[in-house]
């Protein structure tokens, strides 16, 4: 495991920690790059989706994140902080995409930049989908830094220090920004009766998980 480049190639990669993996990638090990992809493509994909919009195709952006990582791999000062490094790159990619979308909204039919589809027959997932459409319409009205702070903390579940690191700001700034954006978002949620109704339906369902299952079984 230690020593020459040749021995690095024989690393048991699935058991390697991030630091070993980062060094192997930096040394040119393609298998290590593949393992980094296997390990971190799903979280990168999810953080991009949650930042940009849950129903958007983000594959191009996932590729962009990993390409940037490879270009910048020499800049990774702490090889053990690979995940944070990738999330930080994903945030830059997300911000770029959000800016592009803002421009693109000028070219679409509605201010959201989204062409709404006519509603189909309602199902249990419709509340969630409609709620998400409306929530992300609210997030579209936030500045990029605030939006991503909200997503990383509340949706992604990162600790505040991780949010600060991912966005390259101080802990105090992240804290202040989070308090402000959370209040703004919730205020706007409360002003949207339809969103509240969808959220209420989801709350009601989450409170009665046991009754839904057997009914479906019986049906």
């Amino acid at each position: 495991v230690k020593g020459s480049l040749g021995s690095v190639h024989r690393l048991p990669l699935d058991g390697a920690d991030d630091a070993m993996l980062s060094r192997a990638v930096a040394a040119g090990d393609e298998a290590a790059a593949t393992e980094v992809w296997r390990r971190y493509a799903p979280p990168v994909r999810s953080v991009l989706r949650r930042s940009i919009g849950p129903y958007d195709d983000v594959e191009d952006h996932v590729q962009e994140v990993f390409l940037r990582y490879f270009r910048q791999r020499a800049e990774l000062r702490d090889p053990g902080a690979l995940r944070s490094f990738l999330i930080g790159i994903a945030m830059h990619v997300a911000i770029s995409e959000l800016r592009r979308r803002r421009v693109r909204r000028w070219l679409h039919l509605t201010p959201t930049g989204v062409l709404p589809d006519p509603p189909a027959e309602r199902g249990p997932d419709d509340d969630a989908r409609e709620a998400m459409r409306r929530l992300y319409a609210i997030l579209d009205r936030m500045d990029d830094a605030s939006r991503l702070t909200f997503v990383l903390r509340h949706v992604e579940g990162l600790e505040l220090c991780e949010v600060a690191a991912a966005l390259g700001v101080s802990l105090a700034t992240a804290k202040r920004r989070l308090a402000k954006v959370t209040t703004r978002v919730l205020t706007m949620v409360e002003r949207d009766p339809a969103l509240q109704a969808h959220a209420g339906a989801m709350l009601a369902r989450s409170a009665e998980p046991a009754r839904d299952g057997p009914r479906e079984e019986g049906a």
Partner: protein
Amino acid sequence: MRPTTATREDLLRVLSEAARREGHGDVPATVDAESRRRTLASMRSLPSAPRSFAARSRAPWLAAAALAAVLAAVLGVFVLRRPSRGVLGAGEAPLAFTVDGAAAHAGVYVHGDESEKRPLLHFSEGSEIVFAPRSSGRVAEVDARGARVLLESGTASFTITHLPGTRWSVEAGPFVIAVIGTAFDASWSVEAQTLEVRVREGEVSVSGPLAPDGAHVTAGRRLSANLLEGELRIGFISAVAQATTSPAPAAAAAPSSIPSAPQSYAGLPSAPQSYARPPHATAHLPTPRLDWARRVAEGDYRGVLADADARGVDGVRRLAPLADLAALADAARYAGRPALARDALLSVRARFAGAPEARAAAFLLGRLADDGGGPTQGAVSWYDMYLAESPSGPFAAEALGRKLTALRRAKDPAARSAADEYLRRYPDGPYAAAARELATP
């Protein structure tokens, strides 16, 4: 208004959970594998890539060929997806330009003196800017896709050549005029804090303090903004104004093609090539901003439809601004009134031909025809029209996929060629499986 049945904490929790669930990182294994393959292939090609990356390839020539294709595809995607300047354009030579025939560079300051001589800026891709006497500005940045121009005071006429990826912007005070390919005049007065934009061809989007989401101004219209009075208006360029501003041959000479009655939309129409209202008929037409786009975005579809019904749908179709008309179409689609949606979309195409909304309307008309169970050819014609007008537009993949589905449903032999084309353009698209069943073996 506080919710009575859910606390803020409940709302935050349930919405966060839904966002987490809906935005999961799972994709089909084939999608993940293809993404990984492309990324690793691109990695190998990076100049800084360790030699071992490339050296380990079993068939270097094959990898190089695949790599070139992947890079071309990735670059193509970026070119289509990135409106912002300076990313892809970084490696391309910026446009060259001259001021009254003399070579100039970014940062040049242009001032029209008291004489009638008007400074002319000519760019290498054909765009031109003319500053009026006593007007001044600066070319702040130039890259391969366009330029960022500051209009400091006075009036300038812009004729911007539309090329793929074109991206120009004009800044006047706190306003930004986003340009793709168009001809327009812009006037900015620092003292009066007023902006006027008169569009002769194409369309611009003006954003600023009174239009944070951007206001579209299409050919034959003008936008007037007064910061001191907090007023922004969009109306038609009057006959007098048109006669006194720069010549606009394309717009002025175009025949009026606005349908006057709904029945003229019957059948499968083709969009007119250009549109200009007859000046005498439009100079005094009211163009109230109904703000329907915002209401649609907020989900108030039925309110918008009720408003349209109250005002008279025919009148709305003939007079409403583009944004409101497009919003009416959305509201009608959402509320299940396909006939009204179709009429509104047809009006968008008839009145605002060339606008992005008009191109998108072709796709939506195809969907309406498709979903309405009408003749297959109706839907396919609209999809073809969209694909012809916007071959790389945001709905191109969907239009092609729906086209092949409609043709297959009709057992039309043309489905095979549509499937071949779909697979060539979108091998991983959502209709790829259906296309493979139909494609030429």
